[in-house]
C-alpha cells in the first residue's frame, strides 16, 4: 500500500469515528493551547517588565547617596543614613568621565502649585535639560529647560497639570506659582502614562537650582547618568564609584546601580517562569498522549476482525502498522493545529482584555507545543500499531 492510500484510508477512519476522534483531538488541542496561552502570558509579563525598565532610559546608571548593604536594589528603595550627601559638584565632577555621555541631577519634592485661583499639590522634579533625553520623555509643546537657563524661573508641566490649570490650551508663557515663587511655563510634557509606579503626567519640572532653593537643601536625590554605549555601562559604574570615593575622602558612601543588572535579573526570572509554565502545560500533552494510546488500543481491539480481513486480503504487517500509525498522526496533527489556533485565539483575547500586556506567544513555545503533540501522538501509537500488526489472522477473523 503506498503512502497516499495509507494516509487517505486512515483519514477516512478518523473521520468516520467522529465522536471518538473529536474528543481525542480536543484533548490534544487543549494541551497545545495551554502551552501557547501560558507561555504567551509569561512572555507578555517579561516584555511588560522589560518595556517598563526601558522607558526609564537606555544605558542608564543611577547614583544615589548612601551605601546599600546588599548588592542590587531598587531605584525607590529606602536606604539607610548617609554620612555624606550627593551634591551638584559631585554631578559635575562625574560628567567629565570619558564613559559618561550626559548626566542629569535630580531632586524630588512636593509643593503647592497655584494659578488662576486653582491650587493643588504636585510632585516637583528639579533637574537640567539633559533629563529629557536620559529619561526618554517628550514634549508636546514649548521647550524644556533651555541649556544655560538654570537660573531662569522656568517650569515644565505634565499633560494632566497643564490641562487642569489651563483648560483653554494656552499654556506656554503663562505664569504659575509654585511654593512661594513665580514660574514661567516653558513647555508641556507629552502624555506618557504611568511607568514604574510614577505618573509623569502629573509632575512639574523646574531647574535643579530652584528646586534646591524650594526644598531648602543643597543635596541631590539622584544623579542619572547615561553611559556612552551598552558596553560602557559597567566601566562607567566602576569609574563613577571610584571618582566619588576619591571626592568623598575615600569613603564609599554612594550606591551606583545600573538598570541593566535589575533588568537582567527580572528577565532571567520571568524567562524561567515562562519555561516553568510551559513545562506544566506540556504535562497535559503527555496526558493527552496516554489518551491517544488508550484510544488506539481500544481501536485495535474493536477492529480485530477488520485487521484479520486486511491480512487475509494480503496486507503485510508493515501496512497495518502504518495504517494505525497514520491514524494517530492525523489525530495529533489535527489536535496540534486546532490547539495552536485556539492558543493564539486565547492570547489574542488576553491582549484584548489587558492591552498593556504584550501577550504574544513566543515562537519556540508554539513550535515546541505542536511538536510535543505530534511526538507524543506518534510514540503513543507505536505500541497499539505493533499489536495490530502482530495479530494472528485466523484468530482475528474469528473475532477472538
Amino acid at each position, binding site marked *: 500500500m503506498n503512502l497516499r492510500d495509507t494516509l487517505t484510508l486512515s483519514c477516512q*477512519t478518523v473521520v468516520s469515528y467522529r465522536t471518538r476522534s473529536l474528543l481525542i483531538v480536543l484533548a490534544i488541542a487543549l494541551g497545545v493551547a495551554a502551552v501557547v496561552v501560558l507561555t504567551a502570558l509569561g512572555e507578555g509579563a517579561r516584555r511588560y517588565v522589560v518595556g517598563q525598565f526601558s522607558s526609564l532610559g537606555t544605558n542608564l546608571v543611577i547614583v544615589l547617596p548612601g551605601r546599600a548593604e546588599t548588592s542590587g536594589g531598587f531605584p525607590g528603595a529606602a536606604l539607610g543614613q548617609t554620612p555624606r550627601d550627593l551634591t551638584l559638584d559631585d554631578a559635575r565632577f562625574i560628567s567629565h568621565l570619558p564613559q559618561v555621555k550626559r548626566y542629569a541631577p535630580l531632586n524630588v519634592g512636593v509643593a503647592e502649585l497655584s494659578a488662576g485661583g486653582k491650587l493643588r499639590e504636585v510632585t516637583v522634579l528639579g533637574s537640567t535639560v539633559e533629563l529629557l533625553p536620559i529619561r526618554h520623555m517628550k514634549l508636546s509643546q514649548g521647550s524644556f529647560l533651555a541649556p544655560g537657563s538654570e537660573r531662569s524661573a522656568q517650569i515644565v508641566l505634565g499633560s494632566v497639570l497643564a490641562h487642569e490649570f489651563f483648560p483653554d490650551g494656552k499654556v506656554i508663557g503663562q505664569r504659575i506659582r509654585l511654593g512661594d515663587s513665580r514660574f514661567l511655563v516653558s513647555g508641556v510634557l507629552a502624555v506618557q502614562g504611568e511607568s514604574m509606579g510614577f505618573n509623569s503626567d502629573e509632575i512639574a519640572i523646574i531647574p535643579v537650582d530652584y528646586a534646591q532653593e524650594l526644598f531648602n537643601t543643597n543635596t541631590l536625590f539622584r544623579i542619572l547618568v547615561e553611559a556612552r554605549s551598552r558596553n560602557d555601562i559597567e566601566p562607567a559604574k566602576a569609574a563613577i564609584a571610584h571618582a566619588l570615593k576619591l571626592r568623598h575622602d575615600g569613603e564609599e558612601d554612594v550606591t551606583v546601580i545600573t538598570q541593566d543588572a535589575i533588568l537582567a535579573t527580572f528577565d532571567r526570572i520571568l524567562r524561567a517562569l515562562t519555561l516553568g509554565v510551559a513545562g506544566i502545560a506540556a504535562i497535559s500533552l503527555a496526558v493527552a498522549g496516554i489518551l491517544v494510546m488508550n484510544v488506539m488500543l481500544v481501536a485495535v481491539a474493536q477492529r480485530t476482525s477488520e485487521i484479520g480481513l486486511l*491480512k487475509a*486480503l*494480503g*496486507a503485510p504487517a508493515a501496512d497495518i502498522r502504518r495504517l494505525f500509525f497514520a491514524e494517530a498522526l492525523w489525530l495529533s496533527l489535527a489536535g496540534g493545529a486546532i490547539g495552536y489556533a485556539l492558543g493564539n485565539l486565547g492570547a489574542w483575547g488576553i491582549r484584548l482584555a489587558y492591552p498593556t500586556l504584550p501577550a504574544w506567544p513566543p515562537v519556540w513555545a508554539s513550535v515546541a507545543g505542536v511538536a510535543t503533540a505530534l511526538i507524543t501522538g506518534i510514540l503513543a501509537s507505536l505500541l497499539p500499531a505493533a499489536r495490530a500488526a502482530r495479530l494472528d489472522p*485466523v484468530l482475528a477473523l474469528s473475532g477472538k
Partner: protein
Amino acid sequence: MIRLNAITRVFRMGDQEVRALNGVSLDIASGEYVSIMGPSGSGKSTLLNVVGLLDRPDSGRYELDGSDVTDLSETERARVRREKIGFVFQSFHLVPRLTAAENIELPLMLEGIAPAERKSRVDAALDAFDLKDRARHRPAELSGGQRQRVAIARATILRPTALLADEPTGNLDHRIGAEVMALLEGLHHAGTTLIVVTHDRELGARAHRHIAMRDGEIVGDEK
C-alpha cells in the same frame, strides 16, 4: 495447483493437545471445484486456512503453483495471499466504514495499483456483480446477498488462482444462497479453482469433488 504433503496442525487448549490436522495430504489441480465437508471440529476450516496461507502448519510441506510456500516469511505469505488467493467468509467481513466500491478497491490498494486503473477495475467488477447502483452504499445499507456479492467481487478483483469459501451461504436464506453459489460456480467455469467448506450436504454435493473430514483427517475423497 495445490499440493499438501503430510500437513499437521496442533492447537494447545490448556494442557490438552488438539490435532486439528493430522498428516493431511491432498492434491488439488488448477480449476477444480472441491467441497470440504465434515462435522464441527473436524479440521475443515483449519485446512482452508492452511491452504489460504493464513495459518502455518506445524509439520509437512505445502506447494502452491509449483513453488514451496511452507517456509515463506510473513511478508512473503501476505504477497502470495494477495496475488493467488481469494477468501469468501460466512460473515462477509466487509469494512463497515467503506462503501461497496471502496471495499472492492481494498486489494487493489494493497497491491499498490494506480487510482485511475483501480477505478476502471472496480467499475467493471461492480458491473459484473450487478452492484452498479449500490456502489456508494455502505455495508449496513446492503442486503445479505448484496454484501456477499461485494465480498466475492473483492475476493476476485486481483484475479486469484484459487477462491476459498468458508460457509459462503451460512448467513443467507436458501434462495439468495443459491444465487451466491451460482455466482461462485460461474467464476469456477471461468477457470478459478473453487474450494468450498460447508456443513450443508446439498451445497457440498454441487461440487465436482467431495472431500470428507473427521478428527483432522481426510476420510473420503470422491469425484
